[in-house]
C-alpha cells in the first residue's frame, strides 16, 4: 500500500486577524478524486493555495509524494508534479489554444536560448515532441476544432476546458481544479465531469477539486472534505457526507 500522495497536516493560515484555515488535516490517496466543498468563504481556495505553495501556512505542513514542505514556492510545486486551474480563468487571451497549452509544457523544455533562437538540432526535436504531447491532449479533450482559435474568442465553457488542457500538459501527478464547472450549463458540466473522470482513469492523475454542484461532487469523488469557516467539519465518502449532520447543518442552516 502506497502512502497517500498528499497529506495536509494541521495546517492553519491567517491573514491578519482573519483565520482562513484552522488546523486542517486530511489526505488524498493515489489515483483518487477528492472534492473540497463548503459555503462561500469557507477557505477552500485558500487551502488549494497552500497546497501549491502560493500561501505559506503559519502552522502545519504539506507532505507531497512523501516529501514534506513548509517552505515551497509555486514553481517548485509545479516542478514536483502539481498543476492547477483557477477559479477565474487565467489564460493568455490573445494566444491560440495550441500556444496556451504549449505554455503548460514550459517546465519540461530544456533547450537553451541560443538553440531555440536558431531552431536547430535538439531544439527542433524537442519542439516536435512537445507538440505531439499537446496534440494528444487536444485529442483527449476534444478541442481539435479550436486548435488555432485565440482563447479570448472562445465561450466560457471551452476556456475552462483549455485551462484543464494546459494543466494536463505539465503531466502532473496531482491536479488541483478550482471550481472547474462554475457557470456552466448542465451539458457542459456533464462533459467536464466526464473529462475529469477520464483524466483520472486514463493517466492515473490524482485530482483535488473545489466544486459547488453537489450532484457533480457526489457523482465523481471518491472522498469529500467539508470546510466551514476555515474548519474541517466532515470528511468521508459521498454517502457518509450525505448523512453527516454537521454538514447538513452547515449547508441548510440550523434552527435555534
Amino acid at each position, binding site marked *: 500500500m502506497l502512502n497517500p500522495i498528499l497529506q495536509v497536516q494541521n495546517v492553519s493560515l491567517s491573514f491578519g486577524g482573519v483565520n482562513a484555515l484552522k488546523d486542517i488535516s486530511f489526505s488524498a490517496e493515489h489515483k483518487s478524486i477528492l472534492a473540497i466543498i463548503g459555503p462561500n468563504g469557507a477557505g477552500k481556495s485558500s487551502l488549494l493555495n497552500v497546497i501549491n505553495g502560493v500561501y505559506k501556512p503559519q502552522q502545519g505542513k504539506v507532505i507531497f509524494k512523501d516529501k514534506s514542505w513548509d517552505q515551497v514556492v509555486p514553481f517548485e510545486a509545479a516542478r514536483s508534479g502539481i498543476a492547477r486551474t483557477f477559479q477565474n480563468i487565467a489564460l493568455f487571451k490573445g494566444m491560440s489554444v495550441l500556444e496556451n497549452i504549449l505554455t503548460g509544457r514550459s517546465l519540461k523544455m530544456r533547450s537553451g536560448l541560443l538553440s531555440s533562437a536558431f531552431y536547430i538540432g535538439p531544439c527542433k526535436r524537442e519542439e516536435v515532441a512537445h*507538440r*505531439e504531447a499537446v*496534440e*494528444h491532449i*487536444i*485529442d*483527449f479533450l*476534444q478541442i*481539435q*476544432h479550436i*486548435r488555432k482559435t485565440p482563447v479570448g474568442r472562445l465561450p466560457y465553457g471551452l476556456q475552462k476546458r483549455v485551462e484543464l488542457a494546459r494543466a494536463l500538459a505539465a503531466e502532473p501527478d496531482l491536479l488541483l481544479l478550482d471550481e472547474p464547472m462554475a457557470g456552466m450549463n*448542465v*451539458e457542459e458540466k*456533464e462533459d467536464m465531469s*466526464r473529462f475529469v473522470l*477520464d483524466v483520472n*482513469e*486514463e493517466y492515473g492523475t490524482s485530482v483535488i477539486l473545489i466544486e459547488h454542484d453537489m450532484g457533480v461532487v457526489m457523482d465523481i469523488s471518491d472522498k469529500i472534505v467539508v470546510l466551514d469557516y476555515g474548519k474541517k467539519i466532515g470528511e468521508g465518502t459521498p454517502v457518509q457526507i450525505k448523512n453527516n449532520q454537521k454538514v447538513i447543518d452547515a449547508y441548510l442552516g440550523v434552527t435555534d
Partner: protein
Amino acid sequence: MVTTTDATFPKLIARNAKLHPGKVAIRHKDLGIWQSWNWQEVEIEIRYLACGLARHGLKRDMNLAIVGNNRPRLYWSMAAAQSLGAIPVPIYQDAVADEIEYVLNNAEISHAIVEDQEQVDKLLEILPKTSALKHIYYDDTRGLKNYRESVLIEYNDLRAIGEDYDSKNKTFFDDEINKNKSSDNSIILYTSGTTGKPKGVCLSHSAWISAATADIKFDQLSDSDSILSYLPMAWVGDHLFSYAQAIVAGFTVNCPESSDTVMADLREIGPTYYFAPPRIFEDLLTQVMIRMEDASHLKKQLFEYSLKIGKNFGADIMDGKPVSISNRLLYGSCNLIFFRPLLNVLGLSRVRVAYTAGAAIGPDLFEFYRSIGINLKQLYGQTETVAHVCKQADGDIKNDSVGKPMKGVNIKVDGNGEILVKSPSMLAEYYKNPTATDEALTSDGFFKTGDAGFIDANGHLKIIDRSKDIGRLNDGTMFAPQFLENKLKFFPYIKEAVCFGDKKDTVCAFINIDLEAVGNWAEKKGLAYAGYIELTAKAEIYDLISECIMNVNSELEKEPELANSRISRFLVLHKELDADDEELTRSRKVRRAFVAKKYAPLIEALFSGAKECSITTEVKFEDGRSGTISANVLIKDSQ
C-alpha cells in the same frame, strides 16, 4: 482481371492495389496531421482485418454492424466483411440506444466494429437485450482503459490476430474473395423512415458498381479526384460517393479530424468533388451572410454588386451559353476580387463537380452557388435505388428539376402522380421483410418512390413533394407542404418549418429559428435574451419571421396552382425539432405525422385563432435522459 460482370468491391480494391499501389486511397487527420494510406496499404489492412474477423467467427452471410464517424478503419471494416461474404450494416453514429437495439436484433448482429467509447457505451447498454452480439471491436481507446467486459476487443488486437492468421493461412483471404459473386448482397442500409420502424435495404455489389460506373462516366471522374467524407456512413449518399465511386474510380477519400472540424478540414484538403445535402449548403450561406453583416459598408456594397453580376451571368457562363464580352469581363473581375477568395475561404475553390441531394434545394440557394462559380448540380434517388435515378448534366441545368434519368434507368409516373423507377441499381429486397418488399414494388418490377412529380417537355424530372404529404385545402387548392417549407427555409433566420393545411381553410406554419443567425441579428439590435426559449418569444423575432413569410406569400402569387395556399398564421416553436426527440429522421427530415401529434394543441390554437398557447413537451438529452420544457407560445397572423 476484374470484368464488370463479376466485380465485387474486394476485387476492385485488389485491382486498385495492383494498378496504382502507391496512390493515396484514404486520408485521415489525426493529432493535427493528415495521415494517408495508399491502395497497397489499404489492401493489407483489409486483409488482416478480414482474417481477424474470420478467426472470431464471422462467416459468409452473417452481418457486421459498423457505428461511428467517417474513419478509414470503419470503411475498411466494410470491405473486410465483404471480403468474407459477410454483410456490413452501418448504423447512424448519433442513433440512440433504442434505435441501435432495433437494428442489432433485426439484423441478428453478432460482431460490431465501433469508433469510440460513446458507441461502446451504447452497445454495452443494449448487450443484455440482444442474444446474438458476442464481439465489440473499438478503434479509439480513449476512456476505455478500465472497461473489463469480455466482449470488448481493441481494433489493433483484432488486426494482430488477423495478421497472425494470415501468415499461417496464406491463401485464405484470396480464396474467400474469389467465392464472392457480384450479385451477392454487399450492404444493408437501414432507411431512417419518416414513418414506422426502419427497414433494411439489401443492395448487391453489382447495383452499386453499375451505378458508380455510370456516375464516373457522366462526370468524367478519375483517380486524381478527391472528396471529403463527412456525411454519415449509414447514409446512401456517403456510401455511393465515398465507397462505391471512390473504389471504382480509385480516387482519394479524406476523413475529417472530427465532426466539428469539417470546415477547417475542407479548406486544407480542397476537394475536387463535393457532395452535401441542401442543409449544409444552407448553413454555409448562413455563415457567409452573418459574416457579411459584420463587414464594412464598402465591402457590403461590393458583396451585393458582385452577387447581382453573378446572378445575371455566372450560371450562363458556366453552362456555355452566349454572354457578351463586356459582361464576361465584368463577371471575370467580380470573380477575381470576390468569388474566388470567397470560395477559397469556404474550401471549395478546387471543386469541379458538386452535388446536392437528399431534399429539395431552394432555387435561390441553388442559384447562389452556381452564380459564384460552383458547378453545383442536383441528383435524385433514394436508398432503394442507391441514389442513382436522375442527375443534371453539365450545361443542362434547371433549378426546379432534378435532371434527366441516368442511362439504364426507367422512369414512369403513375395515375396518382407517384414516380416509379426500374433500373439495374435497385434493392434486392428489404431484409427479412417480404411484405414491405411487395408493397414497395409494382407487379412489373418498378420501385415506388413515394415522391410526387412529373416529367416535363424536355424530359426533366420535377419533384413536387412526398406524394402522401400532398393535400388539398377546403377550397380545393393543392397544398404541397414541402414546397412552402423549402421556400421558408431559404431565409437564413429560419432553420426548419412545418406547414399544415390539408383539409383546412388556410395554411398555418411552425417555424424553428436558426439560433446562430437570429442570435447574431438580436445582438445587433441590442435585444437581450437568456436562452432559446426566451428568444423565440420576442415580439421582434415574430416581426422578423413575419417579413420572411410575407415574402414567401408574395412569391406564391407566381404559381397559379398554389397561390391560394398562402401562409395565414404562424408560430415560432420554443424548442428546436430534434432527431433525438423523434421529430426529425436521422437524415434530418421532418416526421410530419409525429410532429402534428406531439404538438396537437399548438395546431389547434393556430387554426382556432387563439393569440397564444401554452405547451409542455418532453425532451431527450444526448445521454438518453429526458426532461420537460414548457413555454407559452405566441401566435401571429401574417400578411
